[in-house]
Each structure stands twice: as C-alpha cells, then as structure tokens.
C-alpha cells in the first residue's frame, strides 16, 4: 500500500476535466466535469438537463488538447425514448468528430436494482477497453430520480432499503470513476418545498426557485451524501417588451441558469445558458 503522488495528479494530463463544449460553462465549472468523481445535474423538466448531457456525450470524444477526454461514453436512460434525433442535431456542431454517434453506447434502465446490475456488468466492458482507442471515459445516468421515485414506499423500512441502495450504487460508480478515470454524470429531478420551516439546507441555498416554484433536489439527504458535486439548473419565464412597427409588443422568453449547489472545488457561482438548435452555450455576464 502506497500513498498516491499528488504532484502527479496536478499535471494537466492527470486532473482531467471533460469540457461541456462551451468556454463560458467550462469557466464556471473550473474546466468542465471532473473525472474520478460524481457530478449531479438537478432540475425540473424542461431546464436542459438532458440537453447538457447529450452535448457532453459528444464533447467527451474531443481530443484532450481541446478539453475533451478522447473517449467513448455510456448513456443509461430510464425515460424512453432515447433522444437520438436531438443528439444527431447537436453532433453537427462537432464537425471534427468522426461518426460520433457510433461512440455512444446506450442502455435502458427499468429499476434501481436493474441499474446496480447493469453497473456491475459494465466492469468487464470498461476494463476490456481500457487504454484502447475506444476507451470509455464518461457515464451518464438519466435519470436516477425516476428509478427511485416509484419503487419504494414512504415507510421507515423501505426508506432504509432505499438509502442502502443509494450508497451501493454511488460506491460502485465512484469505484469505476476512480479505476477507469471516468467522468460520471447523474441526473436528478426536483420536488416542491411546501413550507419554509422544515426546509433542510443542503449546499449554497435553502431552496431553489425555478418557474416560480420553490423546489429542492429529489431523493433527500442520503442521496445528497452520495454525489461529489451538485449543479442546479433553473428556468425563468420573462415577459420582454419589443417594439414592433412602433407598438410595444410583449412576448415571453425563457431564461435558463446553472448554479453550483455544492462542490469540493468550486465556489458558489452561477451563469445563464441558452439552448439553441445547434448547441448549448453559456452567456458572458
């Protein structure tokens, strides 16, 4: 047993981050999604969780000189169908990649236990491809919340089982992240916060606002202990006035934000981002 040389990890080839595919977002994240740990994206539906993760599947294939991981990725999804058309659309922004869709493996998930089984089976695939041109460098799970939200009852016995499974899945993911130098992204949903008094504060804010709802991340406190970095996405409808032919005309515009809820290496910060046809990108403040 030997301690690890931290200086070696400091060299740019070892502290790997996976670019999100946009300089502004990368700056917010200190270079991108870190390898060797679990990053969670939390948001209500329609905020762009899946969009960001689809773009990640592509940017992970970029060479390391461009901030990517030069690797393939695995996309595990619980909410069918897999948005393959959108992925194809986004891939046009990555003209340098050769047949990018061929380097994305997908697998559907039925239940939380199924997820654990799939992860265990991945070990052999991950190690067989290690250090080969088709090495896998990113796992995305979309979404963890959907798997857990309906399978367990709200009684002490089920809750205990549920949190045990959280830690088992997280431990497996972290072990793989570490062994194979993977970036792991899990997607989580939100639940409404009913009253102010018993809101447990996790991270940089007691509760989060999205579409004028007050929400917090789903799956509770135990799951929050299972991820290393939590990013919160929110949306906000705004009425904007525009002048059309001399008349004021109102239209609604959706603004989207991404904020660091907690992370071992990032301060509390946020940035606005836009989902366009071609790509997802952050806005300079």
């Amino acid at each position: 047993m030997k301690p690890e040389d931290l200086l070696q990890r400091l060299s740019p080839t070892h502290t790997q981050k996976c670019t999100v595919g946009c300089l502004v977002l990368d700056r917010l994240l200190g270079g991108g999604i870190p390898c060797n740990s679990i990053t969670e994206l939390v948001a209500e539906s329609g905020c762009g969780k899946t969009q960001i993760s689809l773009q990640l599947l592509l940017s992970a294939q970029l060479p390391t000189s461009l901030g990517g991981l030069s690797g393939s990725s695995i996309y595990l999804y619980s909410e069918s169908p897999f948005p393959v058309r959108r992925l194809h659309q986004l891939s046009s922004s990555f003209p340098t990649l050769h047949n990018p869709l061929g380097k994305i493996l997908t697998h559907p998930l039925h239940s939380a236990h199924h997820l654990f089984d799939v992860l265990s089976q991945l070990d052999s695939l991950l190690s067989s491809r290690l250090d080969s041109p088709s090495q896998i460098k990113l796992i995305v799970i979309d979404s963890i919340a959907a798997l857990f939200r309906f399978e367990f009852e709200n009684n002490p016995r089920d809750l205990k089982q549920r949190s045990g499974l959280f830690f088992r899945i997280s431990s497996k993911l972290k072990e793989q992240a570490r062994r194979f130098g993977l970036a792991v992204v899990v997607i989580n949903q939100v639940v409404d916060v009913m009253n102010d008094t018993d809101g447990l504060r996790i991270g940089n804010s007691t509760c989060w606002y999205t579409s004028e709802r007050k929400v917090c991340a789903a799956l509770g406190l135990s799951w929050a202990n299972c991820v290393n970095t939590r990013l919160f996405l929110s949306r906000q409808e705004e009425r904007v006035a525009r002048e059309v032919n001399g008349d004021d005309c109102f239209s609604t515009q959706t603004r989207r934000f991404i904020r660091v809820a907690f992370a071992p290496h990032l301060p509390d910060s946020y940035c606005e981002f836009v989902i366009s046809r071609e790509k997802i990108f952050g806005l300079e403040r």
Partner: protein
Amino acid sequence: MEVSSLPISASLRAKLISGGYTSISSLFSVSHSDVARDLKISENQALEILRVASRRRGSERSNGTSSIVNGAQSAWEMLNEEKLLGRITTSCSELDDILGGGISCKEVTEIGGVPGIGKTQLGIQLAVNVQIPMDYGGLQGKAVYIDTEGSFMVERALQIAEACLEDMREYHGFLKRDLQACQVNMQPKDFLENIFYFRVCSYTEQIAVVNYLEKFISEHKDVKVVIIDSITFHFRQDFDDMALRTRLLGGMALKLMKLAKKFTLAVILLNQVTTKYTEGQYQLTLALGDSWSHACTNRVILYWNGNERYAYIDKSPSVRSAAAAYSVTGRGIRSSVSNCKRVKMM
C-alpha cells in the same frame, strides 16, 4: 530535550536520530521491542537506551516521582505535557478559540455536517495547516489523507496551500526584525508533497489502510494529522449484519485512538448526517448510530444558521459546548465575514 545529550554511543545516537527519535520524550511512550525493530539493534541495546533515557527524565523531574508501571503517567505530568502539545489551527480564529486553541493532537475529533457545509474544505485546510513551520507557530508536520468519497481535489488543495503561504509571508513581514533568519521558502507544491493521499473504494480497503497506518506512520514519524474523509461512506451501504458493522467501526476507532496517543497526532474523522426518527419527528443527527457516538473524544457539528456556517462543539472532555461562525472562502476556511464587521464596529 534532544537525544544528542544522552550518554550513549555515537552510532546508537545516529541510529536514533535517523529513526526519527529526535527528542528524549519520543522515547517515553515506546517499548524496547519497537525501538529495536525501528533501529535494527538488539533488544538489549534498546533496553539500555530506554533505561538511560528514563534516568535522564528522572533527573529532570522536579518532584522526582517515578511512574508505577512503565508507560503510566501522573495527571500532573499529563497536564504539563498537554501544555507543550501543539495544536493545529483551523484558520478561523473563532473556531480555534472554542476548540481551546485549535485541533488538539493525541485525540480523535469527529466533524460532521450536511453536504456542502465544508467538511472536505476543513479536512484539506487541516492537511495544509499541519505543515506550517514551527517558526510560525505550527507543527511542521505531515498529513495522511484517506479519501473514501473522492471529493479531494488537488487543485483546491493547491489554492488553500497558496493562501496559507501568503498569510505566512504577511506574518513574516510583521515580524521581520525578530525572525531575520527564517524566510518563507516553501512552495505550494511542497504542501502537496507532504500530504500522503490514500483513495479507498470499499470498506475492506478502508479497514486495511487503517491497519496499515501504524506501520506507515512509524516510518514517517513527522505525520501529525490523519484525516478520514469520510469515515461513513462505505459503511452506509446496506449492511445486513448491523452488529458486524458496529464491531468493525469500533475496532477502527480503537486503532485510531491508539495511533493518536502513540504518535502524538490528531485524528480527524469526517462524518455525514442522517435523519433519525424519534418521538414522532425526524431529527438530524450524525450517521453511524448511537454506539459510534462514544467512539470519538471530541465531536464537532457543522450547521447552517441562516446564511452563515457555524461549528458547534457537541462533545469534548476539555472545552465547554460553544458555537462559532466560520466561512468557506476561495482561500480556504476563514473567520466569518460578519464577525469581522462586528469587531470593526466595536
């Protein structure tokens, strides 16, 4: 007192020093077989060294009491020794104050709180601060960091080390007249070199590393802090046999406590919080259950109070319960901003 003043042969003296036994006090708590093994000398030679060392100690002592059993200490001796023990600063003076001057060596301190409260930040800060040179009131030690969760980020450790160096340089500026000789010639990278980092991916690995620590630290006697971030993570996967879990955790706690005593080092165990169902309502409590709560000497709970982070001493044999605000900044753990304002207003 240095071992160089002991009336023993020069070669033995050199062996002692190269083995890390630089002060006479470092010979008090070890057995002759340990010394024999460490220095690769015969047991008789080791016994002789210890006899000479204890005689020297006897002549030093003002009241001349000698211990009843080898290794036993009177409370008076313990008090004197405790005064000499260094403490590791947290870089937040209010937090240091309620801890009685910082994290104390020779003890196991458990620190718990919700995700994002700053447990890992405090862990990294202590791994850096333990290295502050003696001229700056530090321990000039090294750190062992056992990472069970994968949250240790090298880039963050480097940031905190850089800020720590800046503070030392500033301090050096104040004391320039007195401390001509000691320049700060450390580099941020030196701090990283002195953190022995172990990443463990299962509870069996965690137990193995803890068992290995005794050997590792006896080879690296300048380790002054052991940080486990977190003690909990691998023990929260469904353990069907809860009695086994309790035994494993208890055994680990005992080993760590022994380590703290034997090598005069601080052990920091970071813990998670969980909700506990009592009297019809859910309450926040540190994880791992009731029996675990007896395992650590000190217990510090980190929590949010409005927009401020607070640390609360939940259990300590030597200081009273108290709370202090702290903040997590780009430079690491620091005093809370509102505290500074209050001071300025007065």
